[in-house]
């Protein structure tokens, strides 16, 4: 719920103002859905010309991205806990950011899928019967 209220906030406020008010060493989430396995990380105020986005793995920090962008979108993440940070060529490092990906349950997913399938069949029937009825009386 908190994530989705944040999405509402994004719809109502200027994107730049939100980012501008954050701490320079803070790693931000500017778009995310942990139930769908994706997150957009941003580091607009870190300072520097190039950056390395790192993920904490079993053997230490692993580089995911090296370049001049100040944001990156990670998608297709499986369930689990992830920790990220960014290092700039100016020698600055963001605070580590922890996220937890937890996909929706398959029960819920198939519940919606099954409901959608039934809804479509009903709509097809309503249109088919209605068109035939109208054609037979014209």
């Amino acid at each position, binding site marked *: *719920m908190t994530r*989705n*209220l944040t*999405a*509402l906030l*994004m*719809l*109502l*406020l*200027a*994107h*730049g103002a939100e980012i501008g008010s954050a701490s320079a060493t803070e790693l931000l989430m*500017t*778009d995310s*859905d942990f*139930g*769908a*396995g*994706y997150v*957009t990380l*941003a580091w607009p105020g870190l300072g520097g010309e190039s950056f390395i986005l790192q993920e904490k793995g079993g053997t230490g920090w692993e580089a995911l*991205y090296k*370049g*001049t*962008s*100040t*944001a*990156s*979108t990670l*998608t*297709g*993440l*499986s369930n689990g806990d992830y920790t990220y940070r960014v290092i700039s060529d100016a020698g600055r490092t963001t605070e580590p950011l922890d996220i937890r990906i937890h*996909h*929706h*349950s*398959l029960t*819920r*997913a*198939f519940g*919606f*899928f099954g*409901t*959608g*399938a039934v*809804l*479509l069949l*009903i*709509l*097809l029937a*309503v*249109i088919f019967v*209605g*068109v035939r*009825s*109208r054609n037979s*009386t*014209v």
Partner: protein
Amino acid sequence: MEYVTLPPGVAWSIVAIFSLVWLGMGYWIGRNNADLDDYMLAGRKVGIGLAVATSMATWVTSNTTMTAPQLAYQLGLWGMVGYSLGCVGLLLFAPLARRIREIMPQGYTSGDFIRLRYGKTAWRIFLAISLAYSVGWLISLGMAGGILIEALSGIPYIYGMTVIIAVCTAYTLFGGLKAVIGTDFVQCIIILVGVVVLAVMVINRVGFEDVHDVLMRDRPELLNMLFPAAIMFLFNNLFFGVGEVFHSNVWWSRAFAFAPGVGLKAYLLAGIFWLPIPIVAGFIALTAPVLGVNVPAADMVAPLVASEMFGTTGAILVFVVVFAALASSLDSVLAATGDLITKDIYKGHLRPGASERELRIAAAWIILGISIVTWALSVPHMATLGSLLQFMGAFVASTIWPIAIGLLYRKGAGRHATAAMALGTILGVVAYFMIGFYVAALVSAIVSMLVMLPTLWLPDTFDWAYLQENLEAKTRRKEHDDLGSWPTTPRPAGAGAGGLGSHSASRIAGR
């Protein structure tokens, strides 16, 4: 920007060349517009070729070419397939388009039908939903223009967005729906050819095996056939598309504009031709991890991948295709929203006695006003294209059942339609925030169905002749405007511009 491939001068040149082409076409096509029917409905005689082209081109929006890749990048294979289910809206609207032409041959807007079929309360709720959707769609189109130009050339977002909105507004103002449909035909050809060429280039450059291997290693969920959010997205996007097409005056205005007998075939063919386009666009996005392309925002994935993969030539091709898709939709939504506001708000609420000449002038000012509002709301770049679009799903999906049942059955009164739309929208919005964007439209459609479907077991209450009675009054009003006096020859009872068949008259209840 890391992947600037098009020099700004080249980007501006492309914009300038195509802008001049669209403006020239708009002026030349629209120069013979004689009356409101010509301006708003292209004279009500569009043939099958133009009808298919305009339907397909209008449905290939910047969302198809940029949001479909975004959703593929976020939700994987099912995101790509789910987006292509948007074709179902066109396919299911095909028989309804024929029905609309039959029962309201002199109609102008979807609002006309809702007002006559369900009454003023339902009409006002429908207008609120339709306008909210139209504004949302326009903003997404404006944003897409700015994002595209910035991603490919580095030109600041606000400049690209402003120019595209200005150009599309100008030729829509000049030529009305005729210009919109005429330019759609050319834009449709550009889109189809461009997408085929891009698909061949992508497959030659990046093989399916590389895509599979890299995604399995780094983004496994994108290939997961049991990706929960993506499964939930499938029917949500289907019903979002159905709701968009069923309610939007973009499609109703075409149903009124097409020649008799054209609508059914046009919408069926348009849906079939449209289906592969989001699949191709989505596949482009899935190559981003293979190419090592960093994506700062998910809705930028398509132009970034194109510029990385194809260099300047490919970037030009993508630019031209997406610009054509943008223009073909932006002009349609501007024109249709302008029609809706002109007829249903300006004439319906503010100036009921407005003459045709006054309405034509008002339509032009309203289109200009809409474009200014769109520009202003596009400036802050508030959200990604996908999240903005899917938010609208909660609104439009609630109109599916009132529209379908209202067109085909004489059952269901205004209070049912009002409740269906209001409750569907509210609960769809709740679902959007409580669960996610990928269920909002589906929840809205479910709630709307639960209210409207039981009316099929109620007695027939609506008389189709009521639609003709009110349009009869409009026709006599038009004659008054044209002649300067009221016509003296009485009209035969039940006469109208098109036949209704032999429906037996019955009392109208609950109006």
